[in-house]
């Protein structure tokens, strides 16, 4: 369907519950964003049981609550999630579908938009109105270019990244939910969640601080030898004391993939930058990091940035960090750990 743009959209805020039946912060942020558009919106909920979630946002201003519930919708998988999202969008007759960019909705919404004859844009970092038209801000080329787009395609599914808006608060009450029956099948069973094999919980999206380790940690030091064991001890000690999230430059992760003796607790999941994650933390401390644009994008969304680096002119730090300490990270981090409880 290519129905053109109208001044007033029919907005559906599409949410899913978490395993405890509640809504995640990213869901509440999407609701908060929907309210800023100044248009009526309905809320669609999918999950094992959606009543408690609906009640938690009963006073959010939605004109209608729709729900798809059942044990089959407790699991995050394509077949059942796509069926639920499609049914909710059709019931709401939505022209615009706003949802949080969770792994669950990222997996299904492009396919759902295709079923509905529309389009999906993921990783949106801004949604607003300009001259009566909906505009979405999103990144291209792995966070190296930012574009603002409008679309004539409807329905338009937009998945909004976490941390891009204020979360809705204080909207609890009693909601009346129109339940929709959905017959969904899948040949897939979800067995559960698994933490990285390292056993070290080093990725903490909710952490205040991102600690970025660069390849310099495992290179030869002043005495001509690598000090990998000492580096591991310093980094893990800092993580234990601060509960910081751990990121790594691509080069370091690649080295570990090739079986070289590098920091043993790093996996691909720690990778940030061009082919890794672009985490959103309030603060970021980079140590021994070098490199230019492809790696620097890894901390583009970190608000306050400091770096410890031996090269004052390194592209990672100069012009990218607020403060660069030109110093040996081994010495500095040993002192930092001594000061932390």
């Amino acid at each position, binding site marked *: 369907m290519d129905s053109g743009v109208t001044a007033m959209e029919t907005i559906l805020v599409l949410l899913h519950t978490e395993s405890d039946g509640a809504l995640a912060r990213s869901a509440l942020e999407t609701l908060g964003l929907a309210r800023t558009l100044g248009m009526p919106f309905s809320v669609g909920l999918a999950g094992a049981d959606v009543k408690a979630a609906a009640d938690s946002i009963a006073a959010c201003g939605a004109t209608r609550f729709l729900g798809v519930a059942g044990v089959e919708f407790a699991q995050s998988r394509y077949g059942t999630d796509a069926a639920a999202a499609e049914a909710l969008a059709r019931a709401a007759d939505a022209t615009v579908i706003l949802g949080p960019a969770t792994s669950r909705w990222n997996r299904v919404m492009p396919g759902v938009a295709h079923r509905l004859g529309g389009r999906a844009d993921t990783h949106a970092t801004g949604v607003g109105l300009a001259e009566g038209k909906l505009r979405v801000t999103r990144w291209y080329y792995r966070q190296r270019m930012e574009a603002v787009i409008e679309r004539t395609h409807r329905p338009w599914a937009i998945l909004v990244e976490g941390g891009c808006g204020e979360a809705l608060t204080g909207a609890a009450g009693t909601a009346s939910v129109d339940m929709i029956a959905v017959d969904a099948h899948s040949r897939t069973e979800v067995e559960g969640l698994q933490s990285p094999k390292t056993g070290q919980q080093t990725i903490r999206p909710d952490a205040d601080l991102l600690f970025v380790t660069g390849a310099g940690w495992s290179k030869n030091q002043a005495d001509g030898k690598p000090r990998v064991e000492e580096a591991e001890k310093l980094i893990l000690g800092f993580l234990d004391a601060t509960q910081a999230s751990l990121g790594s430059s691509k080069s370091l992760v690649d080295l570990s993939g090739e079986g070289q003796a590098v920091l043993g607790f790093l996996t691909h999941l720690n990778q940030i930058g061009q082919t890794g994650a672009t985490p959103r933390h309030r603060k970021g401390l980079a140590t021994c990091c070098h490199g230019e644009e492809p790696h620097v994008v890894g901390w583009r969304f970190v608000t306050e940035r400091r770096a410890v680096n031996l090269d004052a002119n390194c592209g990672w730090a100069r*012009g990218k960090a607020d403060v660069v300490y030109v110093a040996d990270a081994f010495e500095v981090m040993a002192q930092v750990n001594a000061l932390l409880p």
Partner: protein
Amino acid sequence: MNSGYQIVVCASIVPDPLQTLEPVAGPQGPALKNEMMLPAVLDPWAAHALFEAAHLARNTPGSKVYLVSLAPKAKLQQVMMTVAQKAPFELIALDGPSGGFTEAADVASALAAAIQAIPDLDRSRLLLFGGWESASRGAGATMQIVGELLGIREQFQGVDELTVGADGSLRILERVEGGKHQVSLCSAAPALLGWATGNLPEPRNNPQVGMLNMRAMMLALQKAKPAHAAAAGVTFAGVAVPKQQRETRLVRDMPAADIAREIVEWIRG
């Protein structure tokens, strides 16, 4: 009776990540400055999908790997000179734009049509692989639409591991929030897997494999059909490289103990 998998990998090419990219206004919408001059590589996550496909095919007798790629064929040929040495596969080339400002739906439609045209494709043995996101559009949308067009409703994204059971079931690890993997068990093919980094390092170049691949590849490139991929219905109100310059305070010659005190105060602040 046939055995093994028919693994179709969807992979395009992207500018080498080390290149500086600058947007320009082109006749069809935004484009990259000197786009045709930029050195290109196989899209990184899709490349991991190819390596995983080759690994699976090597360990599952009777399997075959196809690489379906939509890109300007002259640039695709350049990239294939290297990629052909990594793993045995049959190339199915589509001649069209590979830039990030085209629509995922257009690309998916062209890829699905090319896959449907593969002779004797056995859907019951089909594993459709690709990267979970490209390094160009970065939407993570194309593969899902290809799956929908081919009727594949068992889809997985951000895949880091696939294990095939003795009964043909597929145990799949997908990246989810909190640095964790979701473990799913799919009863059998067909299935779609959008790969993240996986677990395999990049294979070493094997010139013998390259020579075998290139013979068929040159023919595939010559026969590459033109494919349409544009951005109809999309208006780009602005495309820009973000402002990155910060006023950096350089701290030299400060004792490590003082730096540490300043950092700890900042962390606690």
